[in-house]
């Protein structure tokens, strides 16, 4: 058996477990790939406890963000639910294509009768709303931890704007809903706090000359949700970015858009690595995009992409939404709400991901993290067994994992 850990060859996980003080052990564990961490939870109670700790998950997330983000990113799509390891299609190794797409069966998230709609993705948690707004689901596609959340009392079947993101000031994840049809015009915003597990209302006024370009979910970036919008205070309507700061819980207009010539209107926002990404050309044969890494009025934009997309078969008016970017510079597009493709701007070719589609697909990127939708506590029988053994004073919640 060519094991690297046969006792004779030396370093085994248990040897490491026994040799080190906790702070050093954590330094080692933080450098392990995420599936290894999941497996190592099964080594012994001490490691189970260390790896399950929320502080550990946060440190692990920080390291991911400081390093090579792309290797830990995947795509999450709906209808039906699938995850895509999109880099696998870029590399030309035969037989990888099928492995790139993972269909998953998650009975607690059965979306055949109650379609799930994407709200947002942050720190490895994907937030979905249940059609009919009878609730929300918070899901970590890596650890498969799933949590159902109640809907707010303010129910309105159309015109809701959503967003999901992290507020560092209160160390909390929030879901934001606006009641308005087209945006925030009636200033009523309801916010769900994951920490408190409840909804509350707040006021967030958008000045009357501003409106959102399109109803849709806000893009989470640097502690705020962002939408493309229009400023109609001047003669010619100007494209702007409108942000909802999750700490301040206020609408702001801090970011300028790139200076452009010609007939360009910014159609959508996204995230590219650690940058905010804005693009134009969803409906045309050309695609242009810019990125910025800085916040505030001093931030400058860099043009990242400018290429023709004639190579994509089909009618040119089918909408192309950029979802992810590979290390080699290829772009994953969601095309005409059915297909997901990897497009090579250098030679105008593309490959299809073998995804399934029932009807309008929505996609987002997520990171593979240990962040739990339950934050600090885990509904797990093991939790009570391990933590009581270690003498920790915790409120023991033992849910049966069905």
């Amino acid at each position: 058996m060519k094991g690297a850990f046969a006792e004779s060859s030396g370093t085994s996980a248990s040897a490491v477990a026994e040799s080190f003080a906790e702070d050093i052990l954590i330094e080692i564990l933080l450098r392990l790939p995420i599936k290894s961490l999941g497996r190592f939870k099964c080594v012994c109670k001490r490691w189970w406890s260390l790896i399950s700790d929320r502080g550990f998950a946060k440190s692990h997330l920080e390291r991911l963000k400081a390093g090579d983000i792309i290797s830990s990113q995947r795509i999450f799509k709906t209808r039906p639910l699938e995850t895509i390891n999109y880099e696998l299609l870029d590399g030309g190794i035969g037989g990888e294509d099928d492995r790139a797409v993972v269909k998953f069966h998650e009975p607690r998230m059965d979306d055949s009768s109650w379609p799930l709609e994407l709200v947002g993705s942050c720190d490895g948690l994907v937030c979905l709303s249940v059609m009919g707004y009878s609730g929300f689901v918070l899901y970590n596609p890596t650890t498969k931890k799933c949590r159902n959340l109640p809907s707010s009392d303010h129910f309105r079947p159309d015109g809701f704007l959503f967003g999901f993101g992290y507020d560092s000031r209160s160390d909390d994840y929030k879901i934001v809903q606006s009641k308005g049809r087209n945006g925030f015009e009636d200033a009523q915003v309801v916010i769900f706090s994951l920490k408190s597990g409840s909804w509350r209302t707040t006021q967030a006024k958008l000045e009357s000359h501003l409106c959102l370009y399109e109803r849709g979910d806000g893009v989470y970036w640097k502690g705020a949700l962002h939408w493309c919008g229009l400023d109609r205070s001047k003669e010619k309507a100007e494209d702007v970015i409108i942000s909802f700061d999750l700490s301040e819980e206020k609408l702001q207009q801090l970011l300028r858009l790139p200076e452009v010539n010609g007939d360009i209107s910014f159609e959508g926002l996204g995230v590219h690595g650690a940058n905010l990404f804005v693009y134009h050309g969803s409906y045309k044969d050309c695609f242009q995009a810019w990125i910025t890494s800085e916040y505030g009025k001093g931030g400058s934009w860099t043009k990242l992409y400018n290429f023709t997309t004639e190579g994509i078969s089909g009618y040119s008016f089918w909408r192309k939404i950029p979802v992810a970017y590979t290390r080699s510079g290829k772009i994953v597009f969601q095309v005409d709400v059915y297909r997901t493709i990897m497009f090579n701007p250098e030679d105008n070719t593309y490959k299809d991901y073998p995804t399934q589609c029932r009807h309008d697909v929505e996609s987002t990127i997520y990171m593979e993290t240990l962040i739990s939708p339950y934050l600090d506590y885990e509904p797990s029988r093991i939790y009570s067994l391990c933590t009581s053994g270690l003498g920790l004073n915790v409120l023991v919640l033992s849910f049966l994992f069905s």
Partner: protein
Amino acid sequence: MATSRKVTLLSSDGESFEVEQSVAVESITIKDSIEEGSAGNPIPVPKVNSKILAKVIEYCKKHVESAKAEDRVDDEDLVAWDADFVKVDQATLFDLIRAANFLNIKSLLDLTCQTVADMIKGKTPEEKRKTFTIRNDFTPEEEEEVRRENQWAFE
């Protein structure tokens, strides 16, 4: 001027090592005690024996030199040197980690911890299971539960 100043480090087993101050201060622990004026002469380094201290000094010297070099040492060359540096037996590697932690030498801690992480991250679940049955303090019932909850990591 600071670079030509030398300090003497005393290992836990009584051996003295004379090094340039610029090399010694790669260790934040030593740097702080020098700056605070609390470092003796020689500077005692408890918990780190002569074998390990010699290795640590070798690492720090290499890294200080390559940062100063007129014709900068290629990053690739330094990475290769680092990879060779950690090709030691497990006991020595573990001792290097403890020394890097105690002496607060971040780059050495990064290198050695990453090396151990790479060694244990694992191949097949079967090999993992074989390792884990040793000194496993989960009861069979607990182990089944924890495996079930973390099935995602075995797929």
